């Protein structure tokens, strides 16, 4: 039994993951999943409707579901359907996140601590919010780093303002907001184009013209011009023979119809879907959806359909969320093992770690496949990749040394980096298109991957050192053997980190030489990478020179966390330099907090040994075996 327990527990978690492979069931008979798979073009790339829903909802509310007071929560996709076709219902959903107390005050709410509002809650105050936001934007005109200078209140204000705007655009993405019978409207529109155009021509040539026909077409034109300015994703695909990039939003397409005289089949089908959803007619909805899919397949849009389905599947299986949960489980088991030293616990933890790693790898691989890119393309994916690399290290360490250390390191870093990634995802599409200078798979695959691996190994060394300090200072579990093992691990991984960061930095220099014409320009991101290289060189030389020993090594490795986090995040917060495409500022307090915690750990590491729980016990013989200098022959110089 005991032998099989680890595998059984891992199998349970695996089953939980595989459960996500199942397509969601139709809701009230509507084939919502089918709608979620439909490809649209947004932010320069083809993505499923589901991604539009998730990214929009995440950026508006910070969540991927909408909680309801009565009944089960709405998925992002269901929320989008409501928003696009039943705005009167959607207007009641509490999705707008307000955090700053002053903003709550501005909204005039009495309820303290209420974080989410519906658009109906905001209606009365929205004019004053918009007014404030416009004033802020005016005052910022011409200031380069204006976003950085905003106060927390202003940031929250602008977030709310932008969210309301995004929401309004989504409401007008499928049909003009509040339309009852869109399919009928389109029929009338199509029928009035011919007479309207004829009347227009006549009037231009001075012949008698049908005024009514002209006015009707003018009214449509006005209506769709407004729609084209509001509609958000481009839902109308190119017709056969047109450029594959030639997607349009519904408003632009209907204006184009005026010229062509032909209603686009996609518009007709979307109108039918919108009406069916609005009037709660699942059969008609599913029929129009199926018809549209068939039309797409027959009209050179199979690749887009495929892309939509794949990304929908990727969204559905949530590999990063699920591996994050499993990492936590592995981390906990690793900690439990240190307390009770039960081998089955460790083996269960290890099995879970491997499972989490497999799921993590699947997610990473799937993302690369979807994007057609190397693993790291932005800050979000760098977090995913650092977690992945660190987990790989953890598995290797655990396999070689056993003792739960690898479990804790991998579990901890895997979990933390995925949490960081989750928060980075709040700012929008994580598969966004790349700036021109980054559009090169060669350098993304080499420089970026190697540098990011360097970050990963730095964090692994840093966390190992933290384990040394925390276990040694607060518990008596840091036996000389464990201390020695940790010391070797840290030393080995610092060597790894040196290799990666140096090679990565240099590759970056070569890339810069290729694209900007200089190998090295003292740009903040370059300097950040250089700091890591220098710090590693410093650790290694100080150790070879006998200037530091075990605890010195640990203190320096912990401090390495600060340097790495500065290089990874900190330099982006300076808001200057050529690499500012990874800009983010919300994380600043977190970074400062992290750095303070690391400084405290360094201080702990440097405390005299008599304060260390593991070293003061009279039972333990000489404190950890002497400085474990590697054989001189191997390291001299």
């Amino acid at each position: 039994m005991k032998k099989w327990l680890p595998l059984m527990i891992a199998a349970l978690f695996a089953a939980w993951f595989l459960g996500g492979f199942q397509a969601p069931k139709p809701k009230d008979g509507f084939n919502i999943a089918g709608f979620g798979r439909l490809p649209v073009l947004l932010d320069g790339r083809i993505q499923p409707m589901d991604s539009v829903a998730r990214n929009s909802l995440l950026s508006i509310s910070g969540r991927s579901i909408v909680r309801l007071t009565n009944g089960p929560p709405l998925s992002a996709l269901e929320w989008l359907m409501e928003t696009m076709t039943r705005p009167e219902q959607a207007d009641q959903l509490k999705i707008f996140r307000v955090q700053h107390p002053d903003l709550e005050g501005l909204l005039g709410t009495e309820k303290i601590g209420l974080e989410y509002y519906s658009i109906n809650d905001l209606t009365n105050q929205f004019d004053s919010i918009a007014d404030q936001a416009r004033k802020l934007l005016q005052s910022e005109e011409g200031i380069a780093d204006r976003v950085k200078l905003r106060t927390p209140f202003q940031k929250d204000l602008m977030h709310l303002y932008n969210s309301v705007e995004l929401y309004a655009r989504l409401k007008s993405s499928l049909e003009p907001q509040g339309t009852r019978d869109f399919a009928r409207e389109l029929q009338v529109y199509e029928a009035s184009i011919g007479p309207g155009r004829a009347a227009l021509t006549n009037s231009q040539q001075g012949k008698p013209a049908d005024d009514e026909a002209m006015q009707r077409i003018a009214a449509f034109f006005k209506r769709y011009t407004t729609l084209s300015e509001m509609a958000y994703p481009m839902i109308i695909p190119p017709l056969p023979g047109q450029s594959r990039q030639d997607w349009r939003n519904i408003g632009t397409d209907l204006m184009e119809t005026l010229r062509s005289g032909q209603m686009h089949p996609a518009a007709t089908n979307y109108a039918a879907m919108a009406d069916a959803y609005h009037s709660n007619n699942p059969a008609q909805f599913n029929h129009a959806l199926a018809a549209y899919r068939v039309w797409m397949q027959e009209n050179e849009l199979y690749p887009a359909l495929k892309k939509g389905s794949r990304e929908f599947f990727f969204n559905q299986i949530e590999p990063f969320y699920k591996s994050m949960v499993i990492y936590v489980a592995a981390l906990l088991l690793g900690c439990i093992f240190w307390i009770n030293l039960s081998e089955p616990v460790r083996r269960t933890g290890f099995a879970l770690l491997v499972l989490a790693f497999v799921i993590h790898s699947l997610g990473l691989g799937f993302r690369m496949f979807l994007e057609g890119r190397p693993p790291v393309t932005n800050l979000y994916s760098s977090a995913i990749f650092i977690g992945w690399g660190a987990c790989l290290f953890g598995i290797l360490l655990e396999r070689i040394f056993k003792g739960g250390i690898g479990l804790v390191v991998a579990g901890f870093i895997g979990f933390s980096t995925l949490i960081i990634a989750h928060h980075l995802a709040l700012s929008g599409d994580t598969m966004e298109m790349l700036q021109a200078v980054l559009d090169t798979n060669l350098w993304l695959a080499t420089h970026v991957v190697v540098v990011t691996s360097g970050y990963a190994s730095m964090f692994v060394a840093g966390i190992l050192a933290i384990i040394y300090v925390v276990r040694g200072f607060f518990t008596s579990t840091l036996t000389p053997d464990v201390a020695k093992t940790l010391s070797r691990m840290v030393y080995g991984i610092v060597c790894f980190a040196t290799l990666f960061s140096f090679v990565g930095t240099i590759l970056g220099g070569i890339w810069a030489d290729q694209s900007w014409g200089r190998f090295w320009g003292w740009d903040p991101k370059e300097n950040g990478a250089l700091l890591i290289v220098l710090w590693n060189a410093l650790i290694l030389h100080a150790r070879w020179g006998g200037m530091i020993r075990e605890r010195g090594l640990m203190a320096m490795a912990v401090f390495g966390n600060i340097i790495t986090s500065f290089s990874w995040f900190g330099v982006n917060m300076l808001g200057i330099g050529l690499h500012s495409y990874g800009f983010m500022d919300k994380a600043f307090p977190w970074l400062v907090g992290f750095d303070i915690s690391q400084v405290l750990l360094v201080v702990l590491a440097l405390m005299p040994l008599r304060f260390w729980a593991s070293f003061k016990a009279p039972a333990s013989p000489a404190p950890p075996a002497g400085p474990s200098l590697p054989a001189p022959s191997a390291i001299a110089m």
Partner: protein
Amino acid sequence: MVDRFISFFTSLRLTVACLALALVLVFAGTLAQVQIGLYAAQSEYFRSFFVYWTPNGTHWKIPFLPGGWLIGLVLLVNLLAAHIKRFQLSRKKIGIILIHAGLILLLGGQFLTELFQVESQMRIQVGDSANYSESPRKNELAVIDTTDPDKDRVVAIPESIVAKGGEIRTPGLPFALRVEKYFPNAAPAGPMTGDPEKIKAADGIGRQLMFSPRPITHTMDDVDLPAALVQAVSDKGPIGEWIVSPRLTRFPANVQLQEQLDSIMPDVKITAPQTFAFNGRTYEIAMRQVRYYKPYTIKLLAFNHDLYLGTDVPKNFSSKIHLTDPSTGDDRDILIYMNNPLRYHGETFYQASFEPGDKVSILQVVRNPVSLAPYIACSLVALGLVTQFLMHLFAFARRRAQQAKPLPPRKAPATPVREPALANGKGRRL
């Protein structure tokens, strides 16, 4: 004494100290960019021997950090000295030797790059040609003999000489130039503005347009635009006096200035050359960006700036050019785009920028005689690191294979560790 000197320069402690100082310097130099901009931070922190601190309200220069050149130099000496002193060729040391040889080449190469690299920009409008590139920061006082309609003869005087003031005599000119006033950064001033110091000239544009000094800027995007009042003097007496400034010649500052003037003084055309005649020849005088003339011509056929559909994210920038070089017979079309520069005649042309409207492309032109150094250096270091790493890994694997049980204590010095762990080792030398 000599022994101590040698042991100082070959010691590992010096290496560690340099690395630590370099770390502080890079960190400080990065943060400083927020305040003083990239360009100033580069010259104050990295391209210097000392970093100075000037307390507010004083003119003191107190060095508080060694600069990039000093640290680099000491590290280089340290590396070389240590290797010369202890050089021994053995299989086990091959990785270490490769790494440090690469580092020496890298440091040396960067040093030479800082000294010899020339960066300039070529700004071409679609359909136009250019046979020179311009320095983004350096200016020159140019006196151009335009008498011959086919060929201009240019005498260029670097701004640094103009800045010194006084009289400038050069064999290329039959007259002397007297710098009567020079402002390192200047802007046009109206007759009504209350600037305490203003220059006005007897000839040329300076009769209508006055200039007054401005504080020197530091940021990456702003450049200093100087102005000078220059008099041409022959043996027989003064020929004339003009105000020269890149404000009048440099794009886009000149266009902006012209737009401002159009509403006040519509008859003033600042781009019109300031000319004068002397001894039957016609001369033009101007202060402009330093020009680097090429023996070939580049014509911009097309500039493309693609965005991803429905976004402002640039997908690609590219310039299609035609290169004509009479000296080599080159006569061909070339496409320059991001990450794909043109290398020609020891210079490299990069797609650097463009101007709004997508009609003007700006190419960055870099001449760096040691551009190969980092490539070789990096290959050496990477090779060394991999060698070293693999040797460790094999040794580790062999040990583990030999000893199935936990690792036995390695022969370690018997010193107890009950001593401060940091900065107290015996300082084992290389």
